[in-house]
């Protein structure tokens, strides 16, 4: 089950790397980042923890790995974070909300739309938090904090 999810999310993330024209030598790494994030998310969901929390943790881990890869391979971090985030993105939910809206089923649509907002917020907070931590580490290493 987890292996199946790992495999499909690996291919989906790498395929999105192709759609977004990521450099050829980064495609496998894109797939790896994406599948790690997705497996973390699935583990959270399967142990009945809220999807928003799972998304937050997964996107934080993705961004951390992305920043590590970015420094290692001297590539902008967006290459890895985009491909890694893609499986988590509430695209299916956004579609579901919109479908309910255009079918005049507002009562069903609104909670789904709120969930889309919460999940994309969780992704953004995960990304920003890892960036903030990165900056803090950098400054602590340079001793700028204690001057």
């Amino acid at each position, binding site marked *: 089950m987890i292996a199946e999810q790992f495999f499909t999310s690996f291919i*989906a993330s*790498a395929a999105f790397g*192709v759609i977004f024209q990521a*450099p050829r030598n980064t495609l496998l790494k894109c797939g790896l980042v994406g599948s790690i994030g997705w497996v973390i998310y699935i583990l959270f969901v399967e142990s009945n923890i809220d999807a928003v929390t799972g998304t937050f943790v997964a996107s934080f881990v993705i961004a951390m790995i992305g920043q590590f890869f970015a420094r290692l391979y001297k590539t902008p971090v*967006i*290459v890895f974070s985009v491909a890694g985030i893609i499986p988590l993105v509430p*695209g299916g939910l*956004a579609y579901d909300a919109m479908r309910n809206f255009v079918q005049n089923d507002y009562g069903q649509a609104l909670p789904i739309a709120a969930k889309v907002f919460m999940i994309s917020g969780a*992704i953004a907070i995960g990304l920003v938090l890892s960036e903030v931590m990165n900056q803090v580490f950098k400054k602590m290493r340079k001793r700028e904090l204690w001057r």
Partner: protein
Amino acid sequence: MTRNHNVEMIELCLLIGRIMLQNGAETYRVEDTMTRIAASYGKEDAQSFVTPTGIFFSVSKIEPSKLVRVSDRSTNLNKVTLANDISRNITGGRLTLAEAREQLTEIDTAGSKYDYKMRTQIAAASLASGCFSIMFQGNWYDFLPACISGGIGFIVLLLLHRLFEIKFFAEFLASLCIGTLAFTFMSFGVGHETDKIIIGSVMPLVPGLLITNAVRDLMAGHLVSGLSKGAEAFLTAFAIGGGVAIAFSIF
């Protein structure tokens, strides 16, 4: 520093900024790159203001600022990476102004030389569609129908986008096509759940990246670009939802 040198440097900053923005780099990264390059040429107080549709750049307080309009945007991370390498070389002092401009112009005018072929992209989109239908707890019976309708939807999107400028309609018609195909498959008994097939196949069209980027920009204080990306994401989601909903109401 001569006047001419100054003009060339400003042009270089605007060129690299435009290439990065057009190909999907984050606005803060574009701003950062431009001011860094200017600083490496001795202009410490250069200012840049980047929105998804245009770049303002001013090199010092007394000189006039310049503006570049960016009307078409796509995602090409390869070009962003190449431009990033060049900016790294400039700030590291390994490239002269003329060399940098030559390399950037080559990237800018290369067209699809560095890109994946269209058939590779279509194959990727259809493979991703199939995988997404599995990831959203679909049945393996949904894999192949999702691959086919996702691939065809992506072809429709690419072709229509070349035919006319308005992205909204290309997305609308592509998702209408996906919805129709999914229902057609189901009526022939191929596939397990219509919803999983549709969700998988619309993923290559969905503005997931835009939604996330919009929220991220808003949090970082880039209010203008956050709101405009949010509006773009909303329009795309509306187009996809509308297209699929029409397919629902027909069948």
